Structures are given as C-alpha cells and as structure tokens.
C-alpha cells in the first residue's frame, strides 16, 4: 500500500465524499477536504497533521473501547476521536 501522496487528486471518485469515522477497519481512501464549518485553528491543525487534499488515508484500527481510531495518513500514523475525525472528508475505496 503506497503511503506517498497520490498526486493525481480528484480521480473519478467511486463514491461521493464520506467522513473519516465512516471508514471501516482496513479501508483506504483519499482525503478530499476538511469541513469548512470548522474553526480556522482546527482546519489548520488537521492540515498540519497531514490531512490535506490528495493524501492517502487508511483506517488502521480502533482502540478496544471503540475510541479513538488510529489512521495512517500520508507518512505517519495519527489517532483521532470522532469529533476531530468527523471534520475530514474522504473519497472511499481508493
């Protein structure tokens, strides 16, 4: 599974954009954007963590009690609770 950014963004997405928490364990996708309704600080931090359009994302595993969820994003692995993950829009099944 390549971790580098798929540099051809907006490939014809198989499904309309979903939110990150909707991804099943092991599922891959491409980040298509961040919810514009979030505050500037939250959008910036998500981008700083690697959630920028075109980046490959995979839902790796859930913590035993269901939260938080570990995602592979670009070159690194980050865990998020549903509140932050819900702000990330993905195109699933990449």
């Amino acid at each position: 599974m390549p971790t580098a950014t798929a540099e051809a963004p907006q490939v014809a997405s198989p499904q309309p954009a979903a939110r990150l928490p909707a991804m099943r364990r092991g599922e891959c996708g491409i980040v298509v954007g961040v919810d514009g309704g979030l505050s500037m600080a939250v959008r910036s931090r998500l981008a700083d963590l690697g959630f920028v359009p075109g980046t490959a994302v995979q839902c790796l595993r859930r913590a035993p009690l269901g939260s938080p969820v570990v995602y592979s994003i670009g070159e690194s692995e980050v865990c998020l609770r549903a509140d932050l993950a819900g702000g990330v829009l993905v195109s699933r099944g990449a």
Partner: protein
Amino acid sequence: MSTHQGAHARSFEGAHIALLGAPNAGKSSVFNRLTGLRVKTGNYPGVTVTRASGQVSDGATTVVVTDLPGTYGLEPASPDEQIVVDHLLGRLPGTAAPDALLLVVDATALRRSLGLVAQALATGRTSAVALTMTDELAARGGSVDVAALSGAIGVPVHPVVGHRGRGIPALRESLLSWDDWSAPIVAPPADRAGITAWTTSVLDRAAYRPARPSTATRGIDHVILHPVWGLIAFAAVMTGFFQLIFSVAAPAQGWIESLFAWLGGVSAQGISHPVLSDLVQTALIGGVGGVLVFLPQIFLLFAMMALLEGVGYLSRAAVLMDRVMAVSGLDGRAFVSMLSSVACAIPGIMSTRTMPSSRDRLATMLAAPLMPCSARLPVYLLLVGMLVPAGASWGPFGAQGLAMLCLYLLGGVSAMVVASLLRSTVLRTGGLPFYLELPSYRVPTLRGVVEQVWSPVKMFLRKVGTIIVISTIALWALMSFPAHDAEVAEMAPGAADAYVLDHSYAASVGHAVEPIFRPLGFDWRIDVGLIGALAAREVFVSTLGQVVAAQDPGSPSAELAHVTWTGGARAGQPVFTAPTIVALLVFFVYALQCMSTIAVLRRESNSWRWPALAFVGFGSVAWVMAWLARTIAMAVT
C-alpha cells in the same frame, strides 16, 4: 522566584536560537546532544508552559539554544501555542524574539513536516534545518538528496541521528556560525494551497522517496492495540511498573529513612543542648531525609516513563486508556500520571510535564492529590483497625479489606470527578480536540533515558527540596516550643515528649481550631495530629502516639481507644467513636495535607494560586464530606 522564571533564558549570554519542530521529531535528543546536561528548565512567566535552555560553545563563541514545546503548526490553537508563537515573533513581554531558528524535521515524515518549515520560514527569520531519522528513512527504503533539499528550501540542511549523536559535531559548528545562515531569498507561500504546491516542488527537487510503512510497527501494534491482547499487555506493563515502584523504591526509601534516622541519632548525641540537638536531629537532618526519601520513586518513575516513551509505548497506552479518561474530561495521556499518584502525588504531578495542553495538565495536577497515595496507607490501617474488628467478614470478604477498598475507590472516583469539574468550569477547553501521533517503535538509548531522568530529579532537589526543608523546620518549631526544660527534667522520655507537645504552640493551634473541627468529632489532640500530618500524612500516626504518650508511638490504637474529651459538653466521653473515626477517614481521603505536594504544585504550576486554591478547596470539601459521613454513621449506629 517567579522573576527567575522570567529571566532564566536571559541569564545565559549569547545569541538566541530556538529549536522548533513537531512532537516525536527527535527535537529533545538533538537539544540534549547539543547542550549536554547543563540545561535550565523553566516555565514561561506566569504559565504552565515549559521550555528548556542550554548553551553551545567552542570557547570563543557561545549561543543559547531554547527548546520550544513541540508543535505541528504555527496557527495557534490553544493559549499554550499562542505563547510559543508570540515568543517566536517577539511579541512576548520581557522575552526577546530568537535571533535564528533551527527547524528539527523528521525525514520519515518529510512531506508533512515541510508544512511547519514553510510556516516558520514565512516569519522571515534566519534559519537552518536539522534533518533527523535519516537512518530510519534509509532502513525503510526511502531516500532524499540532502544537498538538493537545502537548495530547494533555501536554507542549510544538516542530517543528524540525534539519539546516536551522528551529525551532531557538524550541526554544532554550523550553529556557532549561525550568522552565515540565511532566510530563503524567496519565502514559501503562506496559504494552504500554496504550501502544498511548494512542498511538492521541494520534494521533487530533492528526489524524495518516502519510507515504506514500518512492518515491525504495524505488527507490534496489531497485538499491542488488540482489544484482548492489547489490554492484557497493558495490564502486564502497568503491573510491572507498580511492582518496580513498590518492590524496588519502597526498600530504598526504607534505607534512606534508616540512614537519616541513624545520622540524626549520631549528631544528636554529639550535641549536649537538648533543643539544639533536637533541631539538628528532627528538623534539619529529618528535613533533608524527608526530601531525599522521594528520590527513589521519582527516579524510577521517570526512568520507566522515559523507557516506555522512548520505545513508543506511552502513546499506545494513551490510545488504550483514552476512552476511560474521556469520562473525566481528560485524555489518555493523563492516565499514567493519575496511576503514578497512587504511589505518591509528587512524581505523579511531575509526570504531567509530558502533557501538551496546560489546561489538561493543571486539571490532572489538581486531581492527583486525591488519588489514594501510599502515605495515607498507615493512617487508614490504624483507623480501620480501630473501626472494624480484625475477624469481621462480609460474605467471603474480610470487612477490614472491604473498608480499605472503599477508601481507595472513594479517592480514585473523587479524583476523576474533580478533574471533570475543573475541565468543565475554570479549565474549560481552550484548545483542540484530542489527537496523538503514534511514532514507530524504536530502541531507546541509555543516554536518552538518563537525560530525561536527570532534569526532574535536579528540579525536585533544588526547587521543591527547599520548600520541604523549610516547612519541616517550621513544623518542628511549632511542636517543640515553648521549651519546658524545668517541668520535664524529672519525667520519663515518653511522658516528657507528651508534655512538651501538649504545651506547644501546635497544641495552642489545636485548641484554637478545636471549635472548627468539633462538629466532626475531632478534639484538640486529633487537630495536633492533623498539624503533624502536614509534614507527611503518615506522621499523623506517630504524632497521635506522641500526644497520648503511647508505649509504641508507631501503633497507638490501644491508648487512643481510652482518650476522652477533656472539656466542653462531651467531657469524659471517648473521642474515638465509630462516627468520629469514619469522619477522620473521610477527611484523610479529601484533605490536601501534604506540604511536599503543595511545594511541587507551586513549582509545576508556576504560581501559588493553584496550590492555595487546592489547599483551601480540598480542606473545605474534606470538612463537608467528613461531616456528612459522621452524620450518616451516627444515624446508622
């Protein structure tokens, strides 16, 4: 002391260079390698945000390097991050902007890290990059052309392997001639889309090939974060953690106590004047012993935390415990601090330093003293022993053990409630929702562990130790004066000690506060015991023993059972009735009696406001809860 804090970075001479980078980028090991162990750690003035400074020198030139808190970006998302950004931009009153920036960049996360580089270069400050983890990049099949990267960014780039020390001499040399560094001729764009495009072009020019995901890390995480195996592994790690603290630290503490008791005894023999001899034995040598006795715990706790963090386990433990801690409004990172406080709140409070948000950190520090620490155990054992007959049972369980369990649960649950209340009121979130990067598993170096243990040990000895020694001397004076040499000349030692204490300033305070504590059933002698407990909770037992001139002051329960009220409406009635003992137990669950905890709260929160608030707040809660418990106990007995 707060002026020291504000001035600490100034006290070094030389140009100021700030180290900026993401958490896990290897910033601390680069910093420690550059500066060695001569580091000053302190908070920004008036807040709980920590920074460390150290000097780099070749004899002729000296620069001061400041390690800023790790950050992923410069758009401030919390008051803590605002302070760091203000420092960088020179907007912090009394703190000059750094002369140059050294950007610490993780080569295995180069694409993401360039976002921070772009934001930092946009400040126009003279900069250089330290590129870390290049060994790991190569090991996982990635590569980058460092010279081309430097050309593309427009500032010098120095590859280093911080924890192995590779590349550090060249970096140090470059640091000392920092005025040869430059700001890029063309600054990177400031907007998001621009930064992404800039990053892509820089990576293309540097022929960047990203590392493959670490198969070892994925494999270990498959077990470590597994719903069943992960929790079993977690329980095993935590059990080992505590076994070490109790089976290694506790005997070491015993040796330190014996050593200082012996030292005190020897020096007391050499001094003929009784008060002077007692001053040296109890207050001075006892006070220093009272500081050093915490060292085994602090040392072990930080050594194990450094080890677990160095390996990468600490962030996995935070993932596992996050859901549980979320109930209290905290996140998984607070778990180890709370658990450590079951041994002792001092290392528990100090361990909050690893938490990135100052509000979470304060909430954890303020809740930690409620965790049932080991100093409460002797008090609980004495009082539960007086309250519950030894043979009593409830079903298959011993009643004494159940009573102890209830006390521990009451403390633990109350700590969570307090953290939750603080997080939803005065420490309401001012930051971002929880996120945590899971670094690859790594083999920690001995040097890295030593460096992480050294700083808290030094801080504790120098800054907290002073407060503990001073308060020990003050308490000793309260309990030993005024002198009654003539009256006690003919008495047996136990009776003489009791006489002096019964007529001391502490007794006067005990009598003075008796009206406050009478509704709880505490007479002035219990109040004197509570004053003694300010030195350390377990001192309550021996102080009470001394008050009643017990045969064995370490286990005074027989004598205590016969203590009666000396005046007032209850004169002649026994003091230690069941409701009073219950009230006393509940009081000990809540009250913040430990001066050492107050001292460490003062140091870590960088103000007297929080320890004062905690002392008064927990004292009031303790009184109310003890009164309620006594009232309920009186109704059922």
